[in-house]
């Protein structure tokens, strides 16, 4: 059982749109399994507004920024210029404070109004037309705004964007490999991201940070430290950015007070007064209660995503753990009820949903076609002292995840060996609802991953997973995703001696005529050589890009809240954080393993077919070679079946990727590259740029996702998948990804929930990093009827009887489909 679908973090298909509020399956009745009691009317209204709002583009930020750059470029150091620009935006931007809201502030002038970031990549008029009209992930923009943009914004930024800086400097070999789709480059469109916070903003306000900044400014040694001047500029910029965020909050306080004057409803007047009070307190000073703590985070969140457009937005990290002390104190004192806490958290949840990812263009639009900006709330897990992190706030979060059913924020549960079964089972019941959320992580393994890569024990335990599955020390690490590596495509060019067979162009280096390979080892050696070459290309350019961001696009506000940036006087992008990691995300482990297994078994061992025949069959997309293709599909040991033949190959590829990537220096002092095994939706794009592969996959079809087996090639059930997956050492990575799909009937009874829990515990006991269960919906089953070979994994389990969905006749499949339809609601 593998894989994919649904809205959640890291899946094959573009996420399903949010369910329309009309489909009121969202509002669950109170029920016996302690999930409930459902959304109140305020939350229903806020949710409806958020879900129904159409994403639009706001040109406000670009206009303010461009105007400011025109006036001030050259007058200040770059960090100070960036901070002043941020201050200008916070002072001038149109505020939004909607009816019903308790947690306030938006990045744009209205919910789902998304700004542009021309300093990174400046959209063209044509881009806007595409965004305005494309079928999926549309962003509306008026003709008038396009015209203003064309007049005021586009001309100024020509030749000055980060994207242009990057593309004007890349070597030819890199360009060839990039264009062939051997890898992607994250930073051509957005700034490096992956910014998760630890607990410091709940203990300190921005005024406290300003004091720290002042102390470090005063302590700079201009005589002996050659970088003192640069540090001074950086620290001044951080200081200005704190002021910007404080001003932004105060403007909201003023607005709330003003609105209260004109409000007739007494209860709303009281709420507006409270909002004003909260916004005068945070982020300037540390929060005193639950409400202020949430609003504190939200202002910091907005600040970081307004200052720059970092990948994977921003993330509160272990939000339940940060909020629990406030919750427990207030519950004890009687100043907060559980219902109020849930309402405030729901308001926050909806706020995040109001912020779709800024739109990309070109290749990046294809590789990540989603509104999701990948804020991933970590629920449960362990605390810095190693104890269990589950609290009542964790349960409240699971309840609202189940009830709200919105695209953002993503959420995950963290199940260590000391996490109570009750929490795991509660999470499994939410999974059963079929939202694809929450995904499940193993802190016992990711703490080891972090220790392996040099973090202290406490920092590792305070860390977690953000974005999709990426491991990081929250609040203390810049862990940048640099791009995806198309590992099966590298095998493809190896089988064509460095040429991309899809375009006929050179994409890699010459590694020998495959017909001359005497044995499997000769083939593998050529593949390894090609891998090494491509990875080196990728790293060279990543290092260059990192320098460009350090120089031209510092993030002073983000640097305030990431540990050691103030102490070091350095920016988040310039080695300021305590830890600095670059990840390369390797895709298609299943596809490449199965392809290697095919060649090893059928060409070099059994001699079922010779190399020439397989290569010709692959080149012709198996035209007239169905017997060969079927033989491969049915007579080759594939990854995901607990068969050492294939699993050993997977381990070998994984270990070689690790050796080629891990521990290579990046541009930051002490910073390193590490292996990551994430694919998000990129395996779809990678599949599109590829011809057929030796494992029987047709040209253009998606490659395998994350570390999951190839689609439908795992035919021995989920326990076998887990065994295969754990033959690779997850601790060596910064994250692996396993998607599994389940028919709802496998989770019908409460006993099944406990068994799913045991399955998860088993995976984690064996050292798995992440797993996500997608409860199959009707659409998937219909697809399975059409393309049975991609869905061989769909199990049907009944007492004393087992079968695969594929093997059932049409009537019975229809019965399962009908049943699924009923059960999924």
């Amino acid at each position, binding site marked *: 059982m593998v894989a994919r679908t649904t809205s959640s973090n890291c899946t094959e298909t573009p996420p399903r749109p949010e369910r329309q509020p009309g489909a009121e399956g969202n509002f669950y009745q109170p029920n016996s399994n302690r999930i409930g009691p459902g959304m109140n009317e305020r939350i229903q209204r806020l949710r409806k507004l958020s879900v129904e709002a159409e994403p639009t583009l706001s040109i406000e930020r670009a206009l303010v920024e461009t105007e400011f750059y025109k006036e001030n470029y050259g007058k200040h150091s770059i960090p100070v210029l960036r901070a002043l620009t941020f201050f200008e935006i916070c002072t001038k931007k149109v505020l939004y404070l909607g009816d019903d809201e308790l947690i306030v502030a938006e990045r744009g002038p209205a919910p789902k109004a998304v700004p542009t970031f021309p300093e990174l990549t400046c959209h063209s008029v044509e881009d806007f037309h595409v965004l305005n009209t494309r079928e999926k992930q549309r962003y509306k923009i008026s003709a008038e705004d396009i015209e203003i943009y064309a007049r005021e914004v586009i001309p100024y930024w020509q030749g000055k964007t980060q994207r242009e800086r990057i593309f004007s400097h890349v070597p030819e070999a890199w360009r060839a490999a990039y264009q062939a789709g051997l890898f992607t480059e994250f930073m051509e469109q957005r700034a490096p991201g992956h910014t998760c916070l630890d607990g410091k903003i709940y203990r300190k306000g921005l005024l406290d940070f300003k004091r720290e900044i002042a102390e470090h400014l005063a302590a700079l040694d201009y005589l002996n430290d050659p970088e003192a001047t640069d540090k001074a500029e950086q620290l001044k910029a951080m200081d200005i950015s704190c002021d910007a965020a404080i001003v932004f909050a105060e403007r909201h306080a003023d607005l709330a007070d003003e609105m209260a004057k004109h409000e007739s409803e007494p209860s709303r007047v009281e709420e507006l007064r409270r909002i004003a009070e909260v916004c005068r307190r945070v982020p300037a000073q540390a929060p005193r209660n639950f409400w202020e703590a949430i609003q504190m985070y939200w202002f910091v969140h907005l600040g970081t995503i307004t200052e720059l457009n970092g990948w994977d937005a921003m993330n509160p990290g272990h939000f339940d753990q940060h909020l629990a002390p406030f919750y427990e104190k207030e519950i004890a004192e009687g100043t907060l009820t559980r219902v109020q806490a849930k309402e405030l958290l729901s308001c926050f949840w909806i706020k995040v949903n109001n912020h779709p990812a800024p739109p990309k263009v070109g290749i990046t639009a294809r590789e990540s076609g989603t509104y999701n900006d990948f804020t991933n709330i970590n629920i449960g897990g362990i605390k810095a002292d190693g104890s269990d992190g589950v609290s009542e706030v964790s349960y409240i979060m699971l309840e609202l995840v189940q009830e709200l059913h919105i695209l953002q924020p993503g959420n995950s549960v963290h199940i260590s060996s000391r996490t109570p079964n009750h929490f795991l089972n509660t999470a499994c019941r939410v999974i059963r609802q079929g939202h694809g959320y929450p995904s499940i992580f193993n802190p016992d393994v990711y703490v080891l991953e972090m220790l392996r890569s040099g973090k202290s024990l406490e920092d590792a335990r305070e860390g977690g997973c953000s974005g999709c599955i990426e491991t990081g020390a929250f609040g203390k690490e810049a862990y940048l995703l640099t791009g995806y590596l198309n590992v099966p495509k590298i095998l493809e060019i190896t089988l064509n001696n460095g040429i991309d067979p899809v375009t006929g162009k050179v994409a890699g280096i010459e590694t020998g005529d495959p017909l001359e390979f005497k044995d499997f080892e000769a083939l593998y050696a050529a593949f390894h050589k090609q891998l090494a070459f491509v990875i080196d290309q990728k790293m060279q350019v990543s290092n260059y890009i990192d320098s460009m961001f350090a120089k031209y696009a510092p993030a002073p506000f983000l640097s305030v809240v990431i540990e050691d940036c103030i102490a070091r006087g350095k920016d988040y992008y310039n080695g300021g954080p305590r830890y600095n990691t670059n990840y390369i995300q390797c895709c298609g482990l299943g596809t490449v393993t199965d392809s290697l297994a095919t060649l090893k078994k059928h060409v070099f061992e059994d001699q079922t077919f010779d190399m020439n025949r397989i290569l010709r069959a692959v080149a012709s997309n198996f035209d007239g070679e*169905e*017997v*060969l293709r*079927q*033989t491969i599909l*049915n*007579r080759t040991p594939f990854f995901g079946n*607990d068969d050492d033949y294939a699993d050993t190959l997977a381990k070998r590829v994984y270990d070689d990727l690790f050796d080629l990537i891990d521990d290579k220096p990046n541009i930051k002092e002490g910073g390193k590259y590490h292996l990551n095994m994430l694919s998000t939706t990129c395996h779809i794009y990678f599949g599109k740029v590829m011809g057929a592969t030796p494992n029987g996959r047709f040209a253009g079809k998606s490659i395998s996702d994350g570390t999951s087996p190839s689609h439908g090639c795992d035919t*021995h*059930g*989920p*326990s*076998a998948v*887990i*065994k295969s997956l754990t033959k690779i050492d997850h601790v060596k990575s910064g994250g692996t990804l396993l998607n599994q799909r389940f028919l709802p009937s*496998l989770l*019908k*009874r409460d*006993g*099944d929930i*406990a*068994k799913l829990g*045991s*399955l998860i*515990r*088993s995976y984690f*006991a*064996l050292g798995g990093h992440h797993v996500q269960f997608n409860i199959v919906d009707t659409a998937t089953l219909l697809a399975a009827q059409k393309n049975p070979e991609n869905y061989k994994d769909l*199990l*049907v*389990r*009944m*007492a*004393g*009887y*087992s*079968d695969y969905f594929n*093997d*059932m*006749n049409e*009537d*019975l499949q229809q*019965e399962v489909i009908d049943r699924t339809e009923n059960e999924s609601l």
Partner: protein
Amino acid sequence: MATGVIFDIKRYAINDGPGIRTTIFFKGCPLSCAWCHNPEGMSPKVEKMYSQVKCIGCQECVQACTRNACTLTSEGIVTDKKLCVACGECADACPTTATEMSGQTETTDSIMKILEKETVFFDQSGGGVTFSGGEPLRQAKFLLELLQACGERGIHRTVDTSGFVRLETLLEVARHTDHFLFDLKVMDPEKHKQLTGVSNKLILQNLKLLAETGASINLRLPLVEGVNDDDANIDEVTAFAKSLPGESKKVNLLPYHGVAVHKYEKLGKSYHSNGMAAPSEKRQTQIVERLKAAGVDAVLNG
């Protein structure tokens, strides 16, 4: 080492006893129940199964067959049963698995290797192995060796039986079994014979004697509308269950499902459902309630 004929092995079996289990399906059964959903488990012999849906008409099997038993027709491959000796050459040659052989000879070691792969799941869930079928006690020597081997490795053992076996065999198996799933069908002996081909006299006797040993037993009752879901039969089951010595027995009610039709087709057997169907969901609940009211713990499925 003992060997046996197995027709399927399923990992992550979650309906065949406690926890996550691996179910081993033994080939061959003394009963021939009208509703059987594992028809390939009836005959003890290796059988050929053919699925036209998967067939691409490549005729690899036609060429592979040394007895010329396979012919490609407009209805797919037709096998001349007089010529076929179930040697499996055709299945080996088939690229799509449209042709498969049901029934594979396994040894105790080969099964134990498969079970040991699942240790972590058994440990985490309190699961283990379930020997099912067919009728596992029909291959008693093999079963006993497996039960002992599992016992030595601490793997929890469940045996799913029809009860239509020699008493001595059953009691010997019970010495090495942690839990039984014991099938009841219909209490009326005549009806039982008519529907399953055998009388239930021996079955009920065996069940009683098995219960006397203190064995842990769940009763399993398929529910077929108009066949055995009437109050009279349910009440008889209740009375019988309550009369059994030892701890009170839990009853698993397994509503009929017609999902095995394609297996009959693959075996080239005709399947007459004769309008068999599961009782309505309402009726299913009623039956559960009726059993519970009479003091018998009953659950649907499981």
